[in-house]
């Protein structure tokens, strides 16, 4: 990036987070707004201290994993056998390096484990028991199930009684239902222009054991490439997979489409091809942002020098001084 006098213009660090995209009424709580704002501030603290996009994105997602209000890490949903299985991924836009875990049991911060996969192995994705073996070797402790599972998740598990499809139809399409849950994610750009995308989830209630959605799949639930932009998605996992949502948004940005238009266009495409809703956050290399969703709600927060913007309903955006 150059300014008119030929000197390189300073890149403005920025961060966007989302706390899931769903249509269920009970999702829309003040606690959820506070949770994403807190996550944005956690990531911003690092960027402000000249920290990396990698550290900032991880910190933002850890904040959401630790918050029981959101459904990643602590507060996650249970699979059909009442177990916890977590997915997470992180991707670095400079090198296209990535790390992901799926179906990992009882780890408090799967996003940090995903980062270890990226930094300590030559692999991109480690699943199941292998992921837990890897966690042990990295000195990442397993926590008891009770520490991760909330009352509402248990209630949801009993109510659904193993009916995953009913859950999906209710949660991702505009109909009123009692409970809601989803993926969390973040995209960040630091002063070096490095962009990172990160996602984390406990998946959908009553899913089959071993079911993996979009979150840990590079090009599907997240993507980051310094030459184009960074993207994190949330919504109906299987449908996001079918339209490879994150790389679709990235490809539109590569064609010169703004992040706002790219996310909008990709989400509409997904709705047309699959009938399901989702949400996405994206930033391009110039720091332009896109925050869109075709579900009823997506809690989001965008923070950069001087301001914190946030919202949860369509056409809603509050701005505060950061």
């Amino acid at each position, binding site marked *: 990036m150059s300014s008119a006098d030929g000197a390189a213009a300073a890149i403005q660090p920025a961060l966007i987070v989302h706390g899931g995209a769903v249509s269920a009424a009970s999702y829309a709580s003040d606690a959820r707004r506070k949770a994403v704002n807190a996550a944005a501030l956690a990531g911003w603290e690092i960027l402000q201290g000249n920290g990396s996009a990698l550290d900032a994105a991880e910190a933002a997602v850890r904040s959401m994993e630790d918050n029981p209000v959101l459904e990643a890490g602590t507060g996650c949903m249970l*699979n059909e056998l009442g177990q916890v*299985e977590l997915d997470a991924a992180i991707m670095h836009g400079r090198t*296209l*390096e*990535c790390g992901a875990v*799926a*179906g990992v049991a009882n780890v408090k911060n799967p996003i940090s484990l995903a980062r270890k996969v990226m930094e300590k*192995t*030559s*692999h*991109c*994705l*480690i*699943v*199941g*028991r*292998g*992921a837990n*073996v*890897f966690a042990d070797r990295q000195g990442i402790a397993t926590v008891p199930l009770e520490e991760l599972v909330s009352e509402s998740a248990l209630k949801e598990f009993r109510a659904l009684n193993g009916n*995953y*499809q009913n859950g*999906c139809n209710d949660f991702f399409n505009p109909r009123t239902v009692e409970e809601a849950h989803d993926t969390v994610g973040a995209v960040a750009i630091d002063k070096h222009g490095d962009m990172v995308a990160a996602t984390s989830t406990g998946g959908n209630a009553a*899913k*089959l*054991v*071993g*079911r*993996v*959605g979009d979150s840990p*799949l*590079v*090009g*599907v639930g997240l*993507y980051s490439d310094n030459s184009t932009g960074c993207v994190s998605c949330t919504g109906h*996992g*299987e449908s996001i*997979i*079918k*339209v*490879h949502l994150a*790389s*679709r948004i990235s*490809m539109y940005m590569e064609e010169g489409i703004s992040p706002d238009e790219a996310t909008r266009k990709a989400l509409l495409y997904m709705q047309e*091809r*699959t009938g399901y809703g989702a949400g996405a956050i994206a930033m391009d290399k110039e720091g332009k942002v896109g925050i869109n969703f075709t579900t009823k709600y997506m809690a989001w927060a965008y923070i950069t020098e001087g301001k914190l913007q946030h919202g949860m309903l369509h056409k809603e955006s509050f701005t505060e001084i950061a």
Partner: protein
Amino acid sequence: MPGAVVLVHGGAGKIPKANNDVDNQARLYGVKSAATAAYEALLAGASAVDAAETAVRCLEDFPVFNAGVGSRLNLAGEVEMDAAIMDGRGLRAGAVGAVKNVKNPVSLARKIMDLTPHVLLVGEGASQFAQESGVQLVPMQELITEKSRRALAQVKSLPFGIDPKAEEEEEEHGTVGAAVMDTAGNLATSISTGGISGKHVGRVGDSPIIGGGIYCDNMVGAAVATGQGESIIRTCLANNIIQLMSTGMAPQQAGDSALETMRQRVSGLAGVIVLDRHGNSGICCNTGHMSWAQLKDNELSWGLSAG
């Protein structure tokens, strides 16, 4: 109406150092048999999905390929397999990652697509579903070959363990796959692999990542990849090819272009077979070696390097 087309590959890698003719003949025999079985099924009225499954089942059953029987071993000496299948109608897909004891992982992927609301199952969950779904289960020993054991021993003897680019180096190559168009013009793709020798337990590569190693859309085309898995994931190889075809680029050019982009961005090498919605094909490979066979208009063609 374009008519039936079957394209299969038996894995991409560097030209085998010993240029082992016995193995090359076995690979050619395998891909030709798989293509023929799939094509005959199409002419008898099978769907593209049926034929894609049939082709890869054949390849999984041949021990010379790194899929099903003959799968490479993880660091613990076990067979953990990845596979996927995608139906160009409605973007339906099914996939498995790190599944054990299943004779034909591509058939398990199909069960996931047809019988569950999910796309991807991994690990223990995939194995549990395998038991419930009625696919054939086998003791792990039945999938392990002497070649796979030797390949693991060789990796373990290296000072720094596996090299992410080793998949290209191996004399025995990677993933198998098929891209099919049926007589109604529908597209389907399938893919299966045992992964890299000495991979970390639970490592999943590009094969079951929709948009990475495999993609299929009746409205545009189909692509199936083989080669260095992590590189394919990081650059979304199959997606790139589909995207290029959607702008009007021919399959061969789209495949070659996407492979070159991958090589430039992450230094990874791979092979890919491609079909567009008119039945035109592309057979692309920059690793030097990829066994493949194609059946179209009743003509069988085959080779050991890119067409």
